[in-house]
């Protein structure tokens, strides 16, 4: 297996965009290429495009060649679209990694995009019902899962004593971090009282406990070590990848407050990288809801089970703490165009390890990406490192 590095990463402005998916692919590609002086489209021999709703929302299939054409890339080794709902981008990164590591490609662009704002908001809510088990869960009016995470939050509060105030602190940290990220959907700082007093979405989740609806695109370029060294002396390497998927239908979910897909994949990711959770300096985790970040900190091993609320309360997931979690602002504040979130997380961690992030974690060497998908079904984990 060859070593694989990330050599470029970028995203377009996320939020409510007066732009098409095609426009945003172009913008994100420009930012991505711009992050790596000398890198040109003709250097790239593979492209994976990740999207969850392009087919449904914009009626476009066979989308990877479209993305390649927009970015001036003519793949000679790898081309295709990857979909795993919210985990689409991270899965695409994992597949690009294995393709390069095994020697079939040298340099792959992974680009993700989704446009979720449609002229009639009802169309978006309708289409999102394609995401769960259509025949057996969506018939109950279940779309993307705020109701699921509301139930998870209730169960975690009951079992471990987690409080709405602790959940609010996740949102406060997220918004403060995003206030310095010009690409994030939100730049407004919020207080605990504002989070607690916001309008309910699905109780106990209120407005700031939930990631917003977002349009956006992001891209990274992965390269074999020898090609990466043509562009940088100090590459950011992918040290390991791991995934697990436990179910599709809601009735087959193994646990509500303990997430098996993390507890299966995270130990593998750490073992493959020869690292432990305490070695991680900076992490982008899948904070689709505030409760998600709390549980992920537990199940990734950053803190003990049931202590995720205290972990954020004590500032251990903040700058100056044990591990800086979601310095970008995460899904809660950057937004969450499903198919592009994996590339956004990867791009953030690439910049963190290269030392030029908006909210730089000083001296960061080891970074972890966690992306969750579906009805709390799957986890995709990537560990990145510099000077290793």
């Amino acid at each position, binding site marked *: 297996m060859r070593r694989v590095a990330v050599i470029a990463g970028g995203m377009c402005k996320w939020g409510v965009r007066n732009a098409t998916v095609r426009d945003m692919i172009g913008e994100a590609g420009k930012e991505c290429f711009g992050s790596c002086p000398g890198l040109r489209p003709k250097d790239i021999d593979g492209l994976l495009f990740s999207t969850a709703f392009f087919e449904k929302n914009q009626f476009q299939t066979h989308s990877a060649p479209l993305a390649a054409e927009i970015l001036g890339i003519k793949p000679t080794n790898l081309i295709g679209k990857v979909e795993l709902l919210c985990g689409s981008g991270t899965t695409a990164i994992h597949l690009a990694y294995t393709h390069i590591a095994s020697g079939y490609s040298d340099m792959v662009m992974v680009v993700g995009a989704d446009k979720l704002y449609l002229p009639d908001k009802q169309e978006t809510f309708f289409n*999102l019902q394609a995401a769960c088990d259509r025949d057996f869960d969506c*018939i109950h009016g279940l779309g993307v899962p705020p*109701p*699921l995470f509301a139930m998870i939050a209730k169960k975690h509060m009951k079992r471990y004593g987690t409080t709405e105030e602790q959940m609010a602190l996740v949102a406060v940290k997220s918004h403060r971090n995003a206030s310095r990220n010009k690409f994030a959907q939100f730049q407004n700082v919020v207080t605990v009282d504002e989070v607690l007093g916001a309008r309910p979405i699905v109780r106990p989740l209120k407005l700031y406990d939930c990631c917003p609806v977002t349009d956006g695109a992001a891209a990274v370029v992965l390269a074999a070590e020898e090609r990466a060294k043509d562009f940088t002396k100090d590459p950011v390497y992918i040290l390991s990848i791991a995934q697990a998927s436990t179910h599709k239908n809601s009735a087959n979910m193994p646990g509500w407050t303990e997430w098996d897909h993390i507890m299966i994949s995270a130990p593998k990711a750490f073992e493959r990288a020869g690292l432990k959770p305490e070695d991680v300096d900076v992490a982008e985790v899948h904070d689709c809801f505030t409760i998600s970040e709390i549980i992920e900190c537990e199940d990734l091993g950053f803190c003990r089970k049931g202590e995720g609320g205290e972990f954020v309360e004590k500032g251990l997931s903040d700058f100056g703490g044990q591990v800086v979690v979601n310095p970008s602002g995460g899904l809660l504040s950057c937004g969450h165009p499903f198919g592009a979130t994996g590339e956004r997380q990867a791009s953030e961690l690439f910049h963190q390890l290269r030392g030029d992030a908006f909210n730089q974690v000083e001296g960061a060497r080891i970074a972890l990406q966690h992306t969750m998908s579906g009805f709390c079904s799957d986890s995709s984990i990537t560990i990145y490192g510099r000077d290793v």
Partner: protein
Amino acid sequence: MREEIYWSCIDLFPQETEEHNRIFPFYNHLKEGRLTTTRCTACNAQAWPPRVVCPECMSDKLEWVDLPTQGLLDTFTIEEVGVPLGFERPLIHGLVKINDNLTLFSRIVDTKPEELREGMAVMLKVIPIDRERVIYAFKPQE
């Protein structure tokens, strides 16, 4: 009676009849007030949702078995924002424990949020969605 022909990709609900769907007995049973699933006659594994092939042993010799139509409301939540077209607001989502092995995510109907409490008894409610098709939900036990 044949189903009317229309563009099914904009339909919230599955095609349920024998013409389109091999687990059509599930829907026929619902119309009789029965909640059912498939059990493998080769290895005895019971699956949810119903299948045409056993996920444990790949046998296609499956039989229909009845599930309880009464259960306990394990937890519930009220959706106030983002309720999809075709569903009333607020939308009540519940987890209904129908036996030790199966807890179903379901809409809770014929009630008000303030009347619900965790642990209360609920029962199957079959809801027609058009001339031919039905879906299931749960409602407080009478």
